């Protein structure tokens, strides 16, 4: 391999669209989210470097686990969660350009984005303790309630775009029209599914502070917890990018700078939707979520698919 290729690969891994870019996006996402929620609640909100400061503080704290925990598993699960999100971003076009792309990469990305949920559940089992076990159990129950509507909602743009590749879907939407306007019901279901996937208020049932203390992550501290927070935030960012591409097109201008700005603004729109739903609603109960997921959201998703098939004809 030529030296230039290796250099390009290293830049892609570590700088853009790799680690550094994604971590910066993750920290910006957390800061923006916390600022929006704080201002809506008549508070000031954190300064811009707060997520980075939290990471540094956590790295300095003691890393303590209950006796009997398999340390290798406990440390490996957040790494797996982070790794799957970082891999998923390879296939998601950022500002119109995806690192890799092939027919069917939407399915791969959906699978990779659901690995962190599995890791969260296993983390509860591995660390033991009542709150972790219960939080892990609930997270699995929640997974089944939101994942099906989420997948149905995301297959809408795929059917309309005639392809299972995210880059193709985005390009098709640039040409014909944003999925946000053509299939608003699917967009709503995708947002709800994303809220469930990221375990945010009102669907933060597994880690409800007033019931489960911190869910699966109750016993985590120090570096492992820092890794978990990073994994959660990167998963959020990749989820937001996926939704932007699936419902708002990828590249509307032909200039990279304007593309970037447009992409950022669209991502901010979705972040506002996520933060706004945190502000406006109370936490659901797990049985209310299961009811909602299977009795309301999944049928609505199927309805949306029928409408799309009708349009497509």
């Amino acid at each position, binding site marked *: 391999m030529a030296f230039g290729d290796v250099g390009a690969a290293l830049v892609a891994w570590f700088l853009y669209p790799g680690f550094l870019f994604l971590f910066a996006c993750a920290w910006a996402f957390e800061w923006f989210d916390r600022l929006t*929620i704080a201002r*809506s*609640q*008549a*508070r000031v909100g954190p300064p811009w470097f707060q997520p980075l400061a939290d990471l540094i503080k956590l790295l300095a704290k003691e890393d303590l686990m209950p006796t009997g925990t398999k340390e290798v598993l406990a440390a490996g699960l957040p790494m797996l969660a982070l790794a799957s999100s970082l891999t998923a971003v390879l296939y998601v076009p950022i500002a119109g350009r995806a690192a890799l792309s092939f027919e069917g990469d939407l399915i791969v990305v959906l699978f990779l984005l659901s690995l962190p949920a599995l890791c969260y559940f296993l983390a509860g089992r591995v660390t033991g303790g*009542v*709150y972790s*076990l*219960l939080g892990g159990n609930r997270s699995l129950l929640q997974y089944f309630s939101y994942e099906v509507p989420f997948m149905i909602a995301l297959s809408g743009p795929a059917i309309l775009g005639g392809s299972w590749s995210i880059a193709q879907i985005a390009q098709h939407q640039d040409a014909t029209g944003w999925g946000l306007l053509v299939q608003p019901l699917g967009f709503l279901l995708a947002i709800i599914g994303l809220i469930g996937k990221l375990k945010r*208020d*009102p669907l*933060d*049932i597994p880690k*409800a*502070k*007033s*019931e489960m*203390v911190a869910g699966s992550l109750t016993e985590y501290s120090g570096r492992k917890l820092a890794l978990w927070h990073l994994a959660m935030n990167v998963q959020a960012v990749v989820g937001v990018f996926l939704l932007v591409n699936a419902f708002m097109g990828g590249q509307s201008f032909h200039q990279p700078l304007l593309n970037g700005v447009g992409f950022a603004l669209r991502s901010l729109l979705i972040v506002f939707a996520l933060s706004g739903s*945190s*502000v*406006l*609603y*109370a*936490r*659901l*109960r*797990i*049985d*209310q979520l299961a009811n909602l997921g299977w009795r309301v959201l999944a049928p609505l998703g199927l309805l949306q698919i029928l409408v799309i098939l009708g349009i497509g004809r």
Partner: protein
Amino acid sequence: MRRITIPIGPQHPLLKEPVSFLLDVEGEQVLDSVLRLGYVHRGIERLAQERSYVQIVHLVERVCGICSHVHTTTYCKAVESLMGLEVPERGVYLRALLCELERIHSHMLWLGVLAMNMGFDTVFMYAWRDREIVLDMMEDLSGGRVSHAVNVIGGVRIDLDEEQRKDMLARLAQLEQQVLRAKNVVEHERSLRARTEGIGILTPEQAKQYCVVGPVARASGLDMDLRRDMPHLPYSELDFEVITHDAGDVWARTLVRVLETVESVHLCRQILENLPDGPVSVRAKRRAPEGEAITRTEAPRGEVIYYVRGDGSESPARLKIRTPTLTTLITLPEQLRNVAVADVSVVLSGVDLCIACADR
């Protein structure tokens, strides 16, 4: 499914004060629970036997943070009845003003805590922001936001001049607007009602059997409120209504407390507009004669009973406090039966625990 034991407390993000519930859980249902108290026991009744009547006014204020004024009021009334003193009308009205302000404060705090335990941080922040108006009013009146030290044996130590009175009325108008907005949110917001309806039901028979008092009893259909039932100034001269509900669940308690807050705002306005002139206190002796006195007052959480026995010296022979939270706490194992684990936090918040009151 396996049966596991979930410990709620003594340290738990859900609780403001340490109390221990050991829940026996199978799947998502709570089968039984064990309540353990005493983590905040400070021996206030014992400490009172070593202090003079004047010192105990401040000791008793620190039984509870939120209902501190009611405790001092009830104690002072007991000692005044023992000594045969009569507090002038203006002092009585000012005491009642602070009682009602404290009731508003307590209910707004409780609304925020209920919302926070349901994951509804926004209502929590808004309720506590509006509570600041009440706290500022109390600070201007007495010098402290939560501990007022307003009562002395024989009356109160503060007074309002005309300008302060008008300022209080203006702030009360502002508070009323916010309280009405909070009432609207509680009544119509969908997710709040969905989380609290049908949970933690206490039937009227059970409420009577456990001797429950306060908003919890009124929400179960029992019509009891000492402000109306025990004729005393100034409530016998003021127009207000006692709010009841017949459902007995957490939603009923929420509605009762929010509507009571609106009534308290009306009461505060009437007190401020009809404040009689005159002195605010009478001079009290340092020694109380031999005898016993029992007084009751309506605290934000129900009926508070004080028993004072004097033996002719500067210090009481016995002081006994019965706080309302004790009666509602013992109904919790009954309420928590067959409740989903997710609803435990809502049930515990619905009862408005004040463990410091219960433990003394």
